[in-house]
């Protein structure tokens, strides 16, 4: 998915704490703004961001319209074993985007 940018280390020492940063292209339309015709533009936001490590959920964030457009999230994770970090964004109008990155733990 070209609309997602994920920054995570490719390798990590076992037990070390790594930072994972994720950015996704999305307008985060608040539902409070009038459009050019004077009517309120309907809300269209990402409501939830979740991260898994080898399928186990490690981080979850409920978003509101107060999250800036093109939501950026950074969080930390303990590099327990080699595997896949799965990131998932879901929101209004059936928005679902998933992205995966691999981290080799040695």
């Amino acid at each position: 998915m070209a609309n997602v940018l994920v920054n995570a280390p490719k390798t990590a020492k076992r037990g070390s704490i790594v930072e994972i940063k994720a950015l996704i292209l999305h307008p985060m339309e608040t539902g409070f703004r009038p459009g050019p015709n004077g009517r309120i533009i309907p809300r269209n936001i990402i409501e939830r961001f979740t991260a898994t490590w080898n399928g186990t959920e490690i981080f979850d964030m409920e978003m509101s319209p107060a999250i800036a457009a093109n939501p950026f999230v950074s969080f930390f994770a303990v590099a327990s074993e080699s595997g896949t970090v799965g990131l998932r964004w879901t929101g209004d109008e059936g928005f679902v985007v998933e992205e995966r990155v691999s981290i080799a733990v040695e």
Partner: protein
Amino acid sequence: MDRRRFLAGTAAIVVLPFDSAQATPEAMAAAIRKVVGSSPVREGRVSLDLPPLVENGSTVPLVVSVESPMTEADYIKAIHVFNEKNPQPGVFTARLGPRNGRAVVGTRIKLGDSQKIVAIAETSGGQFWSASADVIVTLAACLEEST
């Protein structure tokens, strides 16, 4: 009333029609109560980093870090962020656990006005810790019409 204050007042009146759903300090307090229930909220352990003066409220970097060993026995299970003057009092709720290693969450938020931001951390033992920060915004988010 000096000229600056008069202009600020006029601006407030102009934007009022769009502000009907605006959160207030009371709405923020109510939203916080909904999360913490009757538990006491103590100041400390939480640090809330965001710039004190923001030129553009549409994207404001924010980092919440909480002191915690993040072990199975003692970890931060949630971080909640609230504001008092955006249309809604809630900004985000992040759920964490011992697998995070560090109780730190960063994101970028929108601010519709100069206001106070409050971060509340919930420990695995059910305690609540908080920090707050005042931000001055020169150009607010949301008020401009979309193009």
